[in-house]
C-alpha cells in the first residue's frame, strides 16, 4: 500500500493552490506604497566605447526622479565571480570588474549603461528612449566566435585581458601524460567534435526587484527573484554596495522558476537599492521578456573535441577532451565553476575508465554572460561522453547496451574514486540500465521500427547512461577547488506553544515543492500531521543563513539540516518528558508523536511536551531552558551521485527531417524518494528541457553580436505536443550513504541525461534508414536533419 502521508507519500503540492489559482505573491505583484519605477537603458551594440551618456534631456522629462549611469557606481565594488580557478600553469584566472552599470565600454547587446527612475513606468520608458537616442557609443568590432577571440589579441572584450581568455584549466594536469600515453597505445580511438548549444533559461517569471530604504533606521530591503536570498544579500552587501549585512533584508517571495538564472546577483538589484536610498522611495523594476533574453545569464555554450580510446571489444581505456567554454562578456557568479568543477569532474561518467584528462579554456565574448543552467556542466559532460560512446559503438559495430554494461563501475567497487577526483559512494548502474531496457521494451524495438517504416518514418533508439554530482556541496572540498563560499545549509525548527510547527529553511523553493516535501519529512520524524507544519523560506529576516537552491541540493543538504534540527527537538522533548513522567531520560522513547516510558503505558503527546516547554509550570528549569526551537547547520561529507539510464525512441520524417519523440523512458536512482509524485514531476520537467535543448532551443548571435533569437518568434521552447508521455521509474534506489535521509537529488537529472539519448536516437534512425550521418549538432532541427541527410 502506498503511504498517504509522511516520507514516501505522494502528498499533493500544497503550494499549487496559490500558484494555480492566481493567489501567488510574486515580486511584480507587490505594490509598495510610493513606489517609483526603474527602466534600464541597454546597449544596442555588442561592443563599444561609451563617449557620452545622454542624460540631460531625460532629467527634465515629466515624472523623472533620477537618472543613473556607470559613473555613479564607479567607486562601488564589482559583482564577483564565486570561484577562483587557476590555469594549468598555476596562474589565477583573469577576473575583470563587473560593474553595476557599464562604465567606459558596453560589452554585449543588452548591457545596461544607464537607468531612469520615474513616477510611472511609461515615463521611465520615455526617458530611457531619449537617453538611448542621445547617447554616443563608438561601436567596436564584436567578438563572438571563441576561437577567433583567442587568436586575435587586437580586439578585446576587456582592454586589460589581451587574449580574451579567462583561464586555461587542466583536470587533472598531472595525469595528462599518462592519458596521452594511453591514447598512443590504444587499439581504437574515436573522435567527435560537437557543440553544446547555448540556451536561454526562460523562467516563466522574468527577473524583478524592489529596493526600499528606511531613512529612520538606515535599513535596506530588497525584494527580488532569487533562488538564494542570503547569497544575494552577501553579494549585494559585502561585495557590491558596502552595506552592512545586518542592515539589508533580502526577500525572495514566490519565484516563478529559476533553472539557475536566479542564483546570481545582477546589477539591477544593486541599482534599485541605490536609487531607493537616493530618492527615499521604493523603486521597482520588472524585466520585460526581451530584457530576459538579452540579460539573464545564459546556459551551456561549449565547443568540445572529445576522444575515446578503447580496445576492439569496446573496453574504455581513456577519455580526453578539449573544450572552449563561453563565459560571455562578464563573469557571472558561478560561471567559472560550471565548465570546470561541475563538468571536468564528471568526465568519467559511471564508467571504470582508468585515464581521463579534461582541458577547458574559458573565453570572453561580446555576448550575455553564461552561467549554470539546470544541470550546469554535467549535461555538457554527459552529452560529450554519451555521444562519443555511441559513435564508437557504430564504428566498431558494437551493441551500445553491452558496451555500457561492460564498462560500468560494479556494485562491489564502491566507494569508487574516479580519475577526475570524485569518490562515488554508491550506485547500481546495471540495475537502472536493466530497468530502463525492460520499461522501454528494447526487445520489441524491431517490431516498432517496422511499424514506423510502414508509415514512411525512420525509427531509431538512443541510450544515455548518466551520472551527476549534486547535493552541492562539501565546503572543505569546494574550498580546495576555488569556491569563495561554503555550501552548507541550515534550518530552524520552531515548535509553537500549541504544538504546530514552523520550519525556517535556507533552501528556496521556486517551483520544486519544498513546502510540501519538507513538511512530509518533519511529519514523519515527529509523528504529527503534515498540515501542522509550515515551511518558511525566502526571507533573510526569518530564516537562518542558508545557501539556497541549485545543484539539486535542497533536500540532500537543507533537508539534512532540517532532520538534524528535528533530532535536537526530539532530544529536548525527551528531557522534558522525563521530568513530567518522573522517569530517567534514558528510559524515554519517542514514536508516533508520543514520548513514552519504555515498558509502561506512561506517555505524553508531542503537543503536551510543546505546551510544557512554553508554559513551564512543571518543568526542569534549573537544568533545561524553556522553549522548543532548534537550529542545525549541515555541511555534507561528499557530493551525492544520482545516476540512471534513459532510452529515447524517435521517428524521423525522412522527407522533411522532422524528429518526433516516440517514447522516452527514464530509470533513475535518486536514493530514497520522499514524494514520488514530485520526483516524477521533476524528471518530466528536466527531460522536457533536455528535449528542448536537443531538438528546439537555439541561441544565435550574428557576427555583429545581435541576438537573432531574442523572442519566442525565433527561440523555440518545447511545448506540450513536442514531448511524449514519459515513462519514469525511480525504484532502483541505492540510498546515499552519507546523509541522514539517504537522498541524492532529482532536480537536474532529466536535463542532464536526456539530450544525448535524443540525439543518439536520431543518429540511429538515420543509420537504419541508410544515411551514414556521424553527428548533428543540437538543436537537431528539421532543417539540420534534412541537410545532414542530403549532404
Amino acid at each position, binding site marked *: 500500500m502506498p503511504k498517504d502521508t509522511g516520507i514516501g507519500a505522494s502528498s499533493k503540492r500544497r503550494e499549487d493552490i496559490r500558484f494555480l489559482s492566481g493567489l501567488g505573491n510574486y515580486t511584480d505583484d507587490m505594490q509598495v506604497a510610493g513606489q517609483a519605477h526603474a527602466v534600464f537603458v541597454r546597449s544596442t551594440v555588442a561592443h563599444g566605447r561609451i563617449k557620452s551618456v545622454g542624460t540631460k534631456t531625460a532629467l527634465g522629462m515629466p515624472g523623472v526622479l533620477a537618472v543613473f549611469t556607470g559613473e555613479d557606481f564607479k567607486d562601488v565594488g564589482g559583482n564577483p565571480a564565486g570561484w577562483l580557478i587557476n590555469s594549468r600553469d598555476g596562474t589565477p584566472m583573469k577576473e575583470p570588474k563587473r560593474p553595476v552599470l557599464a562604465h567606459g565600454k558596453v560589452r554585449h547587446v543588452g548591457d545596461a549603461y544607464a537607468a531612469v527612475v520615474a513616477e510611472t513606468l511609461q515615463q521611465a520608458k520615455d526617458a530611457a528612449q531619449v537617453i538611448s537616442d542621445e547617447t554616443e557609443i563608438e561601436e567596436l568590432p564584436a567578438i563572438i566566435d571563441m576561437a577567433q577571440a583567442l587568436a586575435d589579441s587586437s580586439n578585446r572584450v576587456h582592454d586589460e585581458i589581451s587574449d580574451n581568455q579567462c583561464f586555461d584549466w587542466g583536470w587533472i594536469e598531472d595525469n595528462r601524460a599518462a592519458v596521452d600515453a594511453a591514447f598512443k597505445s590504444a587499439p581504437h580511438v574515436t573522435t567527435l567534435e560537437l557543440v553544446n548549444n547555448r540556451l536561454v533559461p526562460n523562467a516563466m517569471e522574468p527577473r524583478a526587484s524592489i529596493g526600499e530604504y528606511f531613512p529612520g533606521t538606515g535599513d535596506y530591503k530588497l525584494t527580488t527573484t532569487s533562488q538564494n536570498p542570503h547569497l544575494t544579500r552577501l553579494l549585494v552587501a559585502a561585495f557590491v554596495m558596502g552595506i552592512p549585512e545586518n542592515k539589508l533584508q533580502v526577500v525572495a517571495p514566490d519565484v516563478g522558476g529559476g533553472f539557475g538564472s536566479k542564483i546570481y546577483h545582477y546589477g539591477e538589484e544593486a541599482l534599485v537599492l541605490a536609487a531607493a536610498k537616493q530618492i527615499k522611495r521604493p523603486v521597482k523594476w520588472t524585466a520585460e521578456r526581451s530584457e530576459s533574453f538579452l540579460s539573464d545569464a545564459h546556459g551551456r555554450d561549449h565547443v568540445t573535441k572529445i576522444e575515446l580510446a578503447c580496445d576492439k571489444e569496446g573496453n574504455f581505456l581513456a577519455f580526453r577532451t578539449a573544450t572552449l567554454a563561453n563565459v560571455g562578456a562578464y563573469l557571472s557568479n558561478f560561471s567559472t565553476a560550471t565548465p570546470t568543477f561541475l563538468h571536468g569532474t564528471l568526465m568519467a561518467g559511471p564508467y571504470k575508465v582508468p585515464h581521463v584528462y579534461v582541458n577547458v579554456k574559458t573565453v570572453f565574448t561580446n555576448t550575455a554572460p553564461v552561467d549554470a543552467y539546470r544541470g550546469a556542466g554535467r549535461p555538457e559532460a554527459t552529452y560529450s561522453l554519451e555521444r562519443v560512446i555511441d559513435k564508437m559503438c557504430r564504428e566498431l559495430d558494437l551493441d551500445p547496451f553491452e558496451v555500457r554494461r561492460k564498462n560500468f563501475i560494479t556494485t562491489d567497487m564502491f566507494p569508487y574514486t574516479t580519475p577526475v577526483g570524485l569518490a562515488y559512494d554508491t550506485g547500481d548502474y546495471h540495475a537502472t540500465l536493466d530497468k530502463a531496457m525492460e520499461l522501454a521494451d528494447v526487445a520489441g524495438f524491431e517490431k516498432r521500427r517496422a511499424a514506423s517504416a510502414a508509415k514512411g518514418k525512420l525509427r531509431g533508439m538512443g541510450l544515455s547512461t548518466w551520472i551527476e554530482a549534486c547535493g552541492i556541496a562539501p565546503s572543505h572540498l569546494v574550498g580546495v577547488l576555488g569556491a569563495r563560499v561554503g555550501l552548507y545549509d541550515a534550518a530552524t525548527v520552531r515548535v509553537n506553544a500549541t504544538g504546530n510547527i514552523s520550519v525556517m529553511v535556507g533552501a528556496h523553493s521556486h517551483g520544486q515543492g519544498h513546502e510540501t516535501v519538507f513538511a512530509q519529512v518533519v511529519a514523519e520524524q515527529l509523528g504529527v500531521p503534515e498540515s501542522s507544519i509550515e515551511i518558511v523560506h525566502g526571507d533573510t529576516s526569518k530564516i537562518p543563513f542558508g545557501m539556497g537552491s541549485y545543484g539539486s541540493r535542497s533536500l540532500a543538504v537543507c533537508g539534512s539540516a532540517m532532520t538534524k534540527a528535528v533530532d535536537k527537538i526530539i532530544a529536548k522533548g525527551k528531557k522534558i518528558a522525563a521530568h513530567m513522567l518522573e522517569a530517567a531520560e534514558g528510559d524515554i522513547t519517542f514514536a508516533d508523536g508520543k514520548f513514552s516510558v519504555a515498558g509502561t503505558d506512561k506517555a505524553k503527546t508531542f503537543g503536551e511536551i510543546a505546551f510544557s516547554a512554553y508554559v513551564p509550570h512543571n518543568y526542569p528549569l534549573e537544568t533545561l531552558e524553556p522553549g522548543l526551537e532548534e537550529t542545525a547547520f549541515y555541511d555534507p561529507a561528499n557530493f551525492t551521485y544520482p545516476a540512471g539510464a534513459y532510452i529515447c525512441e524517435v521517428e524521423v520524417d525522412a522527407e522533411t527531417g522532422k524528429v518526433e519523440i516516440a517514447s522516452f523512458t527514464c530509470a533513475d536512482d535518486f536514493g530514497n524518494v520522499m514524494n514520488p509524485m514530485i520526483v516524477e514531476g521533476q524528471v518530466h520537467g528536466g527531460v522536457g528541457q533536455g528535449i528542448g535543448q536537443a531538438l528546439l532551443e537555439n541561441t544565435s548571435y550574428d557576427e555583429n553580436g545581435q541576438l537573432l533569437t531574442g523572442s519566442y*518568434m525565433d527561440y523555440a521552447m518545447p511545448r506540450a505536443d513536442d514531448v511524449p508521455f514519459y515513462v519514469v521509474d525511480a525504484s532502483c534506489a541505492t540510498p546515499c550513504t552519507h546523509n541522514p535521509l539517504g537522498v541524492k537529488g532529482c532536480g537536474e537529472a532529466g536535463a542532464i541525461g536526456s539530450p544525448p539519448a535524443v540525439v543518439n536516437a536520431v543518429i540511429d534512425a538515420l543509420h537504419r534508414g541508410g544515411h551514414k550521418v556521424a553527428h548533428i549538432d543540437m538543436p537537431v532541427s528539421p*532543417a539540420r536533419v534534412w541537410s545532414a541527410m542530403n549532404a
Partner: protein
Amino acid sequence: MHNFDFVKPSSIADAVKALSGDGAQALSGGQTLTPTLKQRLAQPSVLVSLTGIAEMKGVCMGADGLSIGAATPHAVVAREAAKDYPGLAALAGGIGDPAVRNRGTIGGSLANNDPAACYPAGVLGSGATIVTNKRKIAADDYFQGMFTTALDEGEIITGVTFPVPQKAAYVKFNQPASRFALTGVFVAKFAGGVRVAVTGASNNGVFRWTEAEAALSANFAAAAVEGLTVSPEDMIGDLHGTPEYRAHLVKVLTKRAVAAAH
C-alpha cells in the same frame, strides 16, 4: 506602449473617416499590431477598431462563392466554413493557437500580408476576391511582396469572396519557434484547373507554383509533381531553414496537400 486614442466605429463609412486622420491606424484582431505597440515599434495617434462593424463579420455562402467578412476571427471561419469549404476552414483552424484564432481576423491577416501567414496561401490558392470599401481586387493582383499589398492608404478590406473548389487542402510545415509556416502550400482543384499557392518560402511573399498547377491540372495526383523541381533562388534563408530546404519543402508539401485534398 505609447498613448493613443481609440475609436470603435460601427459602420464602414465611419471607419474610413476615422482612418483619414493624421496618425490613424486600423486595428482588427491586433495579433500583429498589439505586440508591435507593446514593443513601442509603432506610435499611432488613433487606433481605429474594425471589429465593431456588423457588416464586416460573418461567413455566408452565396452565388459567387463563400463570403467572409473581413473582421471575422479565424475560429469562426474554422467553424462556419467547415461545411462549404472544408479546406479553407482547416487552414483557419490551424492558425496560431486558440487565443490567436479567437482574436485574429482574415482581413487583418491579408492587410498585413506576413510572408509566413497562412491566409494568403488560401486566398491566392483559391483565386479569391478581396473586397474593399472602394473596389474588388483579384487575389492575383492583391499580393505584391512581403508585407506589401494593392491596398491604398486608408483603404479597408471589408470581406473576401472565395470560389469553392472541388477539392482543396492546406499543408503547413511549422517554423519550430513561432509556428508560423516555415513553408505552407494550399492546393485547390477547380473544374477549370488546379491552383497551387505557397506561403512562408519566398522573399517575395506568397506565390503560385505554376508548373505544379499545370502538372496537377493534367493529373491531380502527388506523382504528377514528382519530376518537377523548385528553384531555391529567391527563397528565404534564415536560422530555421536554408533556401534549398524551403524549395524542397514546397514540393514535399504540395504532394502532401494533393494527397490530403478533399
